[in-house]
């Protein structure tokens, strides 16, 4: 199962639909301070089911919706999708591509989709349970937190190993 693309629309500073393709290898993202790089990282955490508002650097779940800028009005919804190559059928879905999507509306209501069909977070977690992708504990290292594994207590560290087991 390979991650092939990320699509953001109305998510944080990405007001317009923006797609990032991920060919095999190392994809590097650069840009000035404040341009939106860590927002891309937040988008990946969010679509995988991140529930903690603090970890998304906001105060409210709707803080991820584009809040407007000098020249644009705020939007009413945010949507992010992750696409995976499933030709090897590792994920229990009958399709060559699996696309998981998360949406949130100004009202605070949110939804998850798998290939366009409404699903629950539990379905997404089960989808990946064999591959490890959904366990963020070690697949997303946030800015400034690289030494989190070292500074954590021995017990918290054990929890990461339990997730990897």
């Amino acid at each position, binding site marked *: *199962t*390979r*991650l092939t693309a990320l699509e953001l629309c109305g998510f*944080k*500073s*990405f*007001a*317009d639909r*923006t797609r*990032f*393709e*991920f*060919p*095999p*290898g*190392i*994809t*590097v*993202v*650069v*840009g*000035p301070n*404040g*341009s*939106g*790089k*860590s*927002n*891309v*990282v937040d988008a*990946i955490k969010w679509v995988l089911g991140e529930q903690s508002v603090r970890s998304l650097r906001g105060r409210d779940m709707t803080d991820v919706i584009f809040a407007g*800028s*000098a*020249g*644009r009005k705020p939007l009413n919804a945010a949507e992010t999708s992750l696409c*995976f190559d499933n030709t090897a059928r590792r994920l229990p879905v009958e399709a060559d591509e699996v696309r998981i999507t998360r949406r949130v509306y100004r009202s605070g209501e949110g939804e998850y989709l798998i290939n366009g069909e409404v699903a629950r977070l539990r379905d997404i977690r089960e989808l990946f349970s064999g*591959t*490890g*992708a959904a*366990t963020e504990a*070690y*697949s*997303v*290292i*946030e*800015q*400034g937190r*690289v*030494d989190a*594994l*070292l500074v954590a*207590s*021995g*017990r918290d*560290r*054990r929890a990461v*190993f*339990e997730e*990897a*087991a």
Partner: protein
Amino acid sequence: SRRLLGDTIETVRGHFRELFTRVFGGGQADIVLDPDVDLLETSVEIVARPPGKEPRGIGLLSGGEKTMTCVALLLAIFRSRPNPFCVLDEVDAALDEANVDRFTDVLKDFRDTQFIVVTHSKKTMSAATTLYGVTMEESGVSKRVAVRLENRAVAARPRAAA
């Protein structure tokens, strides 16, 4: 599940010892458990000894040494339980030039993992297979742009020489 956890820790430990020596170009590291405590309750301790130094607690490691130790531990977990992707947001911020090289070299070893790496370092950029720029040409609105690196092979960030 106790057996499973034990096996996982053992596998990660093996990879961690190997990867630590690789990223540091020497030295030794290990994962240590308290044998008297039940595996499901115990605390997982890390010991790390950079090359040429005495073994000391991980608290005394320098900023860059901590980063490299964590990179080795993270990749050891990846080795034991492959994961389709890994996102690293400015993980190289504390590294000197020699360690940026070792960091990008070891990432290249993991062919099955898709890395998404955010950085300000030109040296890390030159290790990219795909390169994206993110800018805010229109204030407050992020856009993705193509980035042409003048000459990818040459563009190395001349950090203060190691």
